[in-house]
């Protein structure tokens, strides 16, 4: 291989390097020295070595004391220069109001979005981390052994057992944190409803729910004690001190003594409750929970600081088996950090598989993305109209301004705009915060602390520098000669990049518009679709107090029927919103022995089917006329299909070791959300159902409810009627979807706004670039319409491209989302095409305005620009 002959002259790049970095006044001397040394080296060494030494010397010359600008006291901090730049920037804003406002709007929207999402993410991170013992606080999880199921329901004795058997466990709490029920507490004649949980003695020791009154050791020791929250104490006594020792009654049955008052749980606590009862109060009435083989309550551990959790988890894996006397069980235990469970709550077996954290990541990504788009729009717009500032740059440069100082000027200008945008965005945030809180279900606040200030400062600097970098470097690169000669006419800069960006923004907008529409349709569908029963004007409430006694219930129902506004009333054991009890011991002729299909089991009383307006497609409903109905069953269509029965009515089958007769078949009705298919269901007669339903006359709801309240007070003294409307309960099933609907609407609007800004900028840029062309065409007789069409065609093509990209993506996304529903709408083609057409319309509007403006050119002026 032949090498290039090594020349006798030194390499060029070291000199270029020196010329870039070193002070100009040093250059002549140093370059001369370098040359002299090189020549000398050539006499002693090979050319190759001499060149190498030359380059080495050059690099070693890069020292702080020799580099320009660092020690120069001018350029950056000169006060008069600062004032001048400020004035120039201001004049520029005033003269070109449109671009200034567009930039301001774009950036402030982007920043507002960023800040809102930041607040949300910060809040999510803080959940459950406020406990003092956070580093040592763990929760016991149960791996159910089939590789994909994990539960937080542990066996009752696990907590105490681990404390006794494992030295690493300092203390434990057994509590029912998943069943926080609403109950009535009374002191003499004051009755209040409150929510609370059962927890064992060390509850306040592990968790930081500060006790205002009472001590940690004494609050939950007595079985007849209760610890209430500050606000509950206020509601009862009007004060939160000197409350310990007072008596109150729970559910009109249990007499309890108040042993402490705790501060209301902060909004960062995933557990929200008004009172705490000792766990043994519950376990003494539910002794099955004390067995190792059963699972129900949650267990929390306070671990020693130095414990190796991996080793500990291996140790306790077989704990259950050991404690059950070596009995085989698939369940194994492991412990995870308590505060991690909020964000990382999903498990498959023993492995962590995400949870809410994926939303945190998703929204963080969206926030960064939106800010980035806003910055890029800013860049686009600033460079598009560079012609305006050419003269300024040209003059400054010919007067001797360093490129560096020009860069600094433009960077500080963009940072200034960013600061203004930030102020505007803070107003936007404050304005939208209440609504945002409603959508996300949080109570976010803009707290003016140091952390927020540092964050905002960082964001402003980063955004200002990022957004302003390209324009700054671009503008300062302009050569004075070219400007004066007039060669520049709406400078280039990668056109395909700008176009690509607009296409991207529009595709995103189209996807969002289509999604909004699909989600809206699906939600409408869930609300209007026939559920198989009529749910309007029906109220539902739970039996409590005296009502738990069946006789009392029956007489109460009879009383209710006497009220004119009450159309019907009965009892039922299901709320029609979720699957509650199921049974798999239904035996029908032809059932295969290992078929363990589950049927939803619902107990109803006379008249319930009629109350709910359900349709019977065979047979009849339960009726008092037939005494044998106590062994009668009604199945739904799905059940009959499962059993494969041809003539179900009159058939005998076995259930619960007894014989029953099918008296009717009811049309399928939805007792769960549309996410689930209708399961097989069986109804049997009985009056022990936990819920009472009342159908009221729609014309006199207020009146009737008032009368019901009064009746309830007399029939069930000490309790107030706590009911809900069936249709509201049903709507509540779709809370997550409602949120998605709201959020997607906002994001769609935002995306459209930003896309339009981007498009507007691009339109201005193109119009400026093609001025001469337009001018000539106009002279040759083109009409205004023709010109606008010409300019817009380009954009139409871009939007069509966006549609082309976006439609398949949105179709697949919609399909994937709807797959989560067992019952869904079918996707109509016009959902997507409509979105595309809407985008096109918006684009035409945006561009059209700009173009119409552009065509009103003064012909002489534009041709004169030489």
């Amino acid at each position, binding site marked *: 291989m032949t090498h290039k002959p090594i020349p006798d002259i030194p390499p060029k790049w070291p000199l270029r390097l020196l010329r870039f970095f070193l002070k100009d006044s*040093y250059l*002549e*001397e*140093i*370059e*001369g*020295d*370098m*040359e*002299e*040394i090189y*020549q*000398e080296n050539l006499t002693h060494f090979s050319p190759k070595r001499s060149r190498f030494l030359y380059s*080495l*010397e050059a690099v*070693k*010359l*890069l*020292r702080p*004391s*020799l580099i320009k600008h660092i020690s120069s006291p001018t350029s950056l901090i000169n006060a008069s220069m600062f004032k001048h730049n400020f004035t120039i920037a201001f004049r520029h804003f005033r003269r070109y109001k449109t671009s200034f406002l567009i930039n301001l709007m774009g950036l402030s929207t982007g920043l507002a979005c960023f800040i809102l999402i930041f607040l949300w993410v910060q809040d999510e991170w803080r959940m459950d981390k406020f406990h003092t013992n956070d580093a040592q606080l763990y929760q016991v999880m149960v791996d159910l052994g089939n590789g994909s199921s994990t539960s937080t329901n542990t066996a009752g004795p696990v907590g105490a057992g681990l404390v006794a058997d494992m030295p690493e466990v300092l203390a434990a709490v057994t509590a029912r944190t998943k069943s926080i029920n609403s109950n009535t507490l009374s002191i003499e004649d004051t009755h209040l409803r409150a929510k609370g949980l059962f927890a064992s003695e060390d509850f306040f020791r592990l968790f930081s729910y500060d006790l205002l009154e009472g001590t940690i050791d004494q609050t939950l020791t007595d079985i007849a004690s209760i610890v209430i929250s500050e606000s509950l104490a206020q509601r009862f006594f009007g004060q939160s001190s000197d409350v310990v020792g007072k008596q109150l009654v729970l559910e009109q049955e249990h007499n309890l003594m108040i042993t402490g008052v705790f501060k209301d749980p902060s909004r960062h606590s995933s557990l929200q409750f008004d009172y705490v009862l000792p766990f043994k109060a519950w376990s003494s009435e539910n002794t099955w929970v004390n067995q190792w083989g059963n699972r129900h309550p949650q267990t929390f551990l306070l671990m020693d600081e130095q414990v190796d959790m991996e080793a500990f988890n291996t140790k306790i894996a077989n704990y259950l088996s050991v404690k059950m006397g070596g009995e085989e069980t698939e369940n194994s235990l492991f412990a995870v950090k308590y505060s991690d469970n909020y964000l990382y709550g999903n498990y498959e077996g023993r492995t962590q598989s995400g949870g809410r954290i994926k939303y945190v990541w998703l929204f963080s990504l969206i926030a960064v993305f939106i800010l980035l788009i806003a910055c890029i729009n800013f860049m686009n717009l600033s460079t598009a109209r560079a012609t305006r500032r050419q003269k300024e740059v040209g003059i400054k440069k010919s007067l001797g301004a360093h490129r560096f100082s020009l860069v600094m000027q433009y960077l500080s200008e963009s940072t200034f705009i960013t600061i203004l945008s930030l102020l505007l965005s803070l107003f936007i945030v404050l304005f939208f915060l209440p609504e945002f809180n409603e959508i996300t279900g949080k109570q976010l606040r803009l707290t003016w602390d140091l952390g927020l200030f540092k964050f905002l400062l960082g964001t402003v600097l980063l955004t200002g520098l990022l957004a302003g970098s390209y324009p700054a470097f671009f503008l300062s690169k302009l050569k004075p000669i070219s400007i004066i000669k007039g060669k520049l006419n709406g400078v280039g800069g990668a056109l395909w990049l700008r176009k690509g960006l607009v296409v991207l923004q529009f595709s995103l907008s189209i996807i969002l518009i289509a999604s909004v529409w699909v989600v809206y349709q699906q939600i409408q569908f869930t609300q209007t679709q026939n559920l198989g029963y009529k749910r309007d004007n029906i109220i539902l409430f739970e039996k409590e107090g005296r009502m738990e006694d069946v006789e009392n219930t029956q007489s109460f129902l009879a009383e209710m029927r006497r009220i004119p506004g009450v159309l019907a009333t009965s009892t039922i054991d299901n709320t029609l919103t979720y699957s509650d009890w199921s049974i798999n011991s239904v035996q029908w002729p032809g059932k295969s022995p290992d078929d363990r299909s589950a049927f939803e089991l619902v107990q109803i009383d006379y008249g319930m089917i009629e109350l709910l307006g359900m349709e019977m497609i065979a047979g009849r409903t339960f009726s008092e006329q037939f005494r044998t109905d106590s062994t009668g069953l009604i199945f739904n269509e799905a059940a009959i299909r499962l059993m494969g029965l041809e003539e179900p009515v009159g058939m005998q089958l076995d259930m619960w070791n007894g014989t029953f007769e099918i008296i009717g078949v009811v049309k399928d009705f939805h007792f769960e959300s549309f996410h689930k298919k209708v399961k097989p269901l069986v109804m049997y007669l009985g009056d022990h159902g936990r819920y009472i339903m009342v159908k009221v006359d729609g014309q006199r709801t207020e009146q009737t409810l008032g009368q019901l309240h009064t009746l309830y007070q007399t029939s069930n003294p000490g309790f107030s009627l706590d009911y809900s409307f069936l249709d509201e309960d049903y709507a509540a099933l779709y809370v997550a979807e409602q949120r998605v609907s709201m959020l997607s609407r906002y994001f769609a609007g935002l995306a459209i706004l930003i896309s339009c800004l981007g498009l507007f900028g691009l339109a201005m840029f193109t119009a400026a670039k093609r001025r001469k062309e337009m001018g000539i065409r106009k002279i040759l007789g083109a009409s205004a319409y023709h010109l606008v069409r010409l300019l817009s065609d380009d954009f139409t093509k871009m939007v069509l491209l966006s549609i082309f990209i976006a439609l398949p993506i949105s179709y697949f996304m919609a399909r994937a989302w709807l797959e989560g529903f067992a019952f869904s709408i079918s996707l109509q083609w016009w959902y997507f095409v409509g979105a595309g057409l809407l985008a096109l319309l918006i684009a035409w509007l945006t561009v059209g305005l700009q173009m119409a403006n552009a065509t009103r050119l003064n012909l002489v002026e534009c041709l004169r620009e030489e």
Partner: protein
Amino acid sequence: MKITKIGEFEELVLMTVIVLQEEAYGVAIKKELEARLSTSISVGSIQSALKRMEGKGYLESQFGAATAKRGGKRKRIYSATQAGESVLLQMKAIRNGLWNSMPPLALDFKL
């Protein structure tokens, strides 16, 4: 008397400047020091020291003649100022003082 700071290397460079008289420019200083110290020195360190001392007021300089050997670039000839000379004398006096106060070192100690 106030002692103005001067580093060890800078002191050497300053002394070399005075020694070389009219030939005191970058390359010559470099070669002289390399010979005396028996080590190679980079152009950068020499230049750095020269500029720093010029800033402190110990040296002054002016352009000399250009030669073809330097690609037509002129040399910068350095010379010490009054301040420069006096600081050298100060340092010398301090060192002499210390040497005189030293106990007899095992200078002739042969292993």
